[in-house]
């Protein structure tokens, strides 16, 4: 290796390690704030569950679900995902959605419900997109199982 490169590499490495060490305790809760904290998220989940109850495309999946539990676990999940002070206490996504054979269209239908609720509650588009970006990677643990 070029002898000039070595000190720079060491410095870069140190900077990276430093960044890792310091990013631990300070969590970014800006999305949690933008969603209106715990109260805003509870309203969001209220709205979502209401829309699902009116959505004939996906309602049939929820006939045996426990709405009380769903409300609690979804709220925890959105809160945790957005950087809020919550811990998700539900089951993992694969376990929950296995054997439901949720299709892509059904998944998107729920996403559309969520978007409608966020629009209705005037959540800024940036916060909407950031929440959706954190939910999107879960799709493969939810559909087609």
């Amino acid at each position: 290796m070029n002898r000039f490169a070595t000190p720079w590499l060491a410095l870069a490495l140190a900077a990276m390690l430093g960044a890792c060490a310091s990013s631990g305790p300070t969590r970014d809760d800006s999305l949690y704030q933008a969603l209106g904290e715990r109260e805003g998220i509870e309203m969001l989940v209220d709205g979502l569950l209401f829309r699902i109850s009116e959505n004939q495309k996906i309602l049939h999946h929820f006939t045996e679900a426990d709405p009380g539990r769903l409300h609690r676990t979804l709220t925890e999940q959105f809160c945790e995902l957005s950087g809020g002070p919550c811990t998700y206490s539900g089951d993992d996504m694969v376990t929950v959605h296995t054997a439901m054979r949720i299709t892509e269209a059904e998944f998107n239908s729920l996403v559309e419900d969520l978007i409608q609720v966020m629009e209705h509650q005037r959540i800024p588009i940036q916060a909407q997109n950031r929440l959706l970006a954190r939910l999107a990677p879960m799709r493969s643990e939810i559909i087609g199982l």
Partner: protein
Amino acid sequence: MGVPIRQAACLLLLCLPLAAQAGGGRLLATGGLTQLEGAAGGGLVPWAVLAGYGTADETGGTIAISHTVLPDYNLSMLGLAYTFYNRVEISAARQSLALDLGSGTEEIRQDILGAKVRLTGDLVYDTLPQLSLGLQYKRNRDMDTPEAVGAERKDGVDAYLAVSRLFLGAIGGYDLLLNGTLRATRANELGLLGQGGPDNDSYKLMPEISVAVLLNRSTAVGYEYRRKPDNLGLDESHWHDVFFAWFPSKQLAFAAALVDAGSVGPYDSQRGLYLSLQGSF
């Protein structure tokens, strides 16, 4: 504007109420618009996305018209596209280029049949971006002018590989769409001036890109760039546009763009307005 295209525009308006009853399971705007050659894409560039809103279990398509007004030309396009199970898109388009010759107008028409296959990935979800391979068979119907300027033949096939991805919330919380397309072509001005010419008669690889930002759930602004070969030695230009698209519903989309087509045939500084209307079903 050619007569068939005008009739088709009426047809499109008649079809819209029908289209209003459909609506596939993909998210709003993820079917894109219809590009100049009839494939799902932006205005100029075919994207990896497939026409309409159907998911892996659905079928659906689009019908679109566009009109581009340039200082010395008008280009009209009518396109139909249909997608099977978010896997294969087939499309047919008719282009009509009207040249203002001062002494009168001349029309050059071209038919384009397209096919596009989604090879892998997804526009929004999963790890891989959407990757598609497309073909466009083009046949020029009015070869007098193209032959006069040296075009070798009236028909040809373009092949392209396109990759598209929507990055959710990527730019300060706004969604960012990136598309890159690499096309093998020997068409002159999309094929409106035939294929091949005295300066070059072999396939050239031409990159095309589109970048768009979604301002809210139903509107997007973007930029497109499309490189073109110069087979005829007429200083054929690369094309750019800045576009605005509005998706009021999954049934309808409008787009408007400022297009810079550079020099086309003998005329240069061809800058103008592109307008399009798309119905999805």
